[in-house]
């Protein structure tokens, strides 16, 4: 293994390889930051470039892209309330309020640093679990996937805060929207109303672009001014403060990275779920009862950003071990490997271990490089929040709509983005949380599909959820995550009352 690592480092440290890596990182940052494009598009667009390359050079270029997209996506999530890619959606919850308070620099600094550290933790985990990959992947069967999805859905209760009723209403709408389209269990199309565009379901990225980016632009147009609420009285906070915040809140970063790696390794779940779970866990486990989330808490940026970058390493576990992509991005990456005559699976790990380590080294260097670029430019990026709406609205709207279109070059996706923009605007206006809608949209079908598969496999026996250790563990975690904040709040209130009585 050590020898392969040395070869991996050696492959990277030549002028050509470094230039490829930097180009990959730059493309990844750009495609990550532009809503709708994302790493999958970037990797797919770069495939023809790799035709004449050596396999290790193709891997370096792709590694550079994959490692940098989440970091790029955090910038637009913080500055424009628009997740550059879906896994950055949870970053908007506290990142954007921070930007509105004029703390965009700090938020970007924290997001980029958490991304780098999370990415490194994910990659270290990838290296560490290479010998036990098989056991990890085989551990998860449909009952466990179902419980994992239920665990994620609990984030709805957490994200709703004091708007539980509104949260539940939007979550139900999210579930209904998620059920539209082809259902893989029956092979039938549901609720499409005969509209061909809806036969494959509502696509997540155009929906999120409308719900978060364009709706925010409508809101800004109505309100006027700039993203930062009072540009005259605030200065762009120091990016270094954000970096310091990550080290100060190291446990938040570590827990987020753990979620990212673990969930990234489970095929079909992905970085979006990892980021949501990391965020909701952070809200629940925060020892300070007076700290509010969703209104500009730096820990609400660190938790999802460390998770969505750590998942890059995690999602490569099933990709490399079994040729099963852990995410859409790694699915395309798999295609790149196959094009270069490299068969993913244990054969790759056994016969081409140096290539695996070349990828590991490329991912590590790229995530650090992307972070340094973002940190260097954060101050200038943050100025975007002070730009007048007259400039910002048309620019962001055009970029967002082009992003929605470019994903599948489908005009219908632009229509979806616009419909969700209107829905999103009314949700902002009437104080309905958009987060719960998104969580339900992402997890609804995953929950349903795995429940149905469990019932098919176990002949409708519901007790199976209680007879498998991992399923039970996830159930216990779900119950704890729901009950623990209430329990902790009550204990604290009682202690405060006692202290108050004692001091009388």
């Amino acid at each position, binding site marked *: 293994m050590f020898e392969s690592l040395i070869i991996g480092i050696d492959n990277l440290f030549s002028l*050509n390889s470094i*230039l*490829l890596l930097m*180009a990959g990182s730059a493309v990844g940052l750009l495609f990550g930051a532009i809503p709708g*494009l994302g790493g*999958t598009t*970037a990797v*797919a*667009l*770069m*495939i*023809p*470039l790799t*035709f004449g390359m050596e396999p290790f*050079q193709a891997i370096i*270029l792709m590694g550079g892209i994959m490692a940098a997209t989440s970091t790029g996506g955090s910038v637009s999530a913080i500055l424009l309330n628009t997740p550059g890619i879906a896994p950055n959606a949870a970053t908007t919850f506290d990142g954007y309020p921070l930007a509105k308070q004029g703390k965009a620099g700090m938020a970007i600094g924290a997001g980029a640093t958490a991304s780098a550290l999370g990415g490194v933790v994910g990659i270290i985990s990838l290296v560490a679990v290479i*010998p036990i990959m*098989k056991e990890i*992947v*085989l551990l998860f*069967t449909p009952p466990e996937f179902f419980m994992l999805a239920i665990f994620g859905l609990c984030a709805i209760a957490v994200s709703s805060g004091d708007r539980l009723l509104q949260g539940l209403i939007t979550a139900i709408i999210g579930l209904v929207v998620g059920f539209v389209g*082809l*259902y*893989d*269990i*029956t*092979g*039938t199309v549901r609720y499409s109303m005969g509209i*061909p565009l809806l*036969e*494959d379901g509502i696509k997540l990225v155009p929906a999120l672009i409308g719900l978060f980016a364009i709706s925010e632009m409508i809101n800004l147009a109505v309100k006027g001014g700039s993203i930062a609420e009072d540009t005259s009285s605030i200065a762009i906070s120091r990016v270094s403060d954000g970096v310091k915040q990550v080290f100060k809140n190291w446990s938040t970063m570590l827990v987020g990275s753990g979620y990212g790696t673990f969930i990234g390794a489970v095929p*079909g779940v992905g970085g979006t779920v990892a980021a949501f779970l990391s965020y909701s866990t952070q809200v629940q486990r925060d020892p300070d009862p007076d700290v509010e989330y969703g209104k500009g808490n730096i820990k609400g940026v660190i938790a999802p950003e460390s998770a969505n970058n750590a998942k890059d390493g995690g999602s490569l576990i099933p990709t490399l*071990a*079994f*040729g*099963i*992509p852990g995410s*859409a991005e790694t*699915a*395309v*990456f*798999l*295609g790149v490997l*196959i*094009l270069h*005559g490299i*068969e993913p*699976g*244990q*054969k790759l*790990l*056994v*016969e081409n271990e140096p290539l695996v380590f070349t990828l590991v080294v490329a991912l590590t260097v790229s995530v650090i490089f992307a972070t340094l670029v973002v940190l260097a430019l954060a101050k200038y990026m943050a100025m975007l929040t002070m730009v007048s709406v007259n400039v910002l609205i048309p620019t962001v709207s055009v970029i967002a709509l*082009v992003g929605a279109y*470019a994903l599948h*070059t489908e005009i219908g996706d632009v229509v979806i983005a616009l419909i969700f923009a209107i829905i999103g605007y009314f949700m902002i206006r009437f104080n309905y949380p958009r987060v719960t809608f998104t969580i339900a949209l992402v997890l609804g079908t995953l929950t349903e*599909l795995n429940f149905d*598969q469990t019932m*098919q*496999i176990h002949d409708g026996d519901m007790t199976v959820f209680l007879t498998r250790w991992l399923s039970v563990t996830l159930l216990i975690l779900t119950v704890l995550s729901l009950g623990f904040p209430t329990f902790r709040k009550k204990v604290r209130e009682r202690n405060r009352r006692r202290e108050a009585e004692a001091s009388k």
Partner: protein
Amino acid sequence: MLSRLVTGTAAAALAVGASLLPAQAKNITFLIAYGPGGGFDTVTRKLAPLIEKHLGGNVNVVPKNMPGGRGKKAANYLVNRKPNGRNLLIFNMPGHAMPNIIGEKADYDVRTIDWLARAAEFKYLIVTSARAGKFKTWKDVTSYKDKIKIPMTAPGTTGYLATAILMDSYGIKPNFITGYKSSSKYALGVIRGDGDLTILAKGSFRKYITSKKKNRQAFKDLRPLLEITNGPSQFGVETTGSLGKKELAVLGGDRMIGTTPGTPKAVKEKLANAVFKAVSDPEFAAWGKKVGRDIAPLNAAQTKAKALELFAYYSKFKSVLAASVKK
């Protein structure tokens, strides 16, 4: 290297913008009915530059993913273009024929497509999990009295249909566990015990079992039970042919390239010639061998005959197929 990278990066960036523009006169769009990364995607992307080479002149063949409706969306798109040879699609047969056979709404009919060539094919194998140890031979399967659970993709997919027809011919009522996104995922489902057996393309199976380090190879737990062929078994198991089911040998998949029906004869001939040369190119064959794809070139006339043969064969099982899709 650097100049190619810079040029390529600029081209990639421009591609996003270019996608907003009308197709350039000399561009041929090579449609892929599925998302990036899969078998159809990689075959198409490997073929595109070879078709450019054999067409000559200054023609760009640009691959474009158009996933949706289990492949129907791209096929509908193709037949609704002007018949000028500027759009190609790599068809998944018999998957693309299913809507035509069972009477599902589709704008296209595989019998009227202007076929150009076949690039590759795949044949199937029934596999089980060695870990479970439930079945050691195909006879164990046919004599099994309880339900046989089969992890599978959605009803209506090529693997699902082949399994439904095979099981029907043996009088076995399969209990499908559906919803897996790909064959690698349902194969993993068999290994971890979600079901008893499943169907795999032989190339995929070969790929899964050729690891040197057994203890790290989950797919190594797959064991072949029955090979669908009339020839000798490549895996030392019983074959449908040796068991007297010669008609089942057709079960499998074909990757066929076609263009819009009604394309002028001269254009079609030129295209067919270039596409056939591309699929017969030694570079394509060498690549297929390297990555385990069964490259099987057919010319335009042979491809058309094959398409009609497949349509006629699967039409015999219309009721089985229709029932599976409406499950």
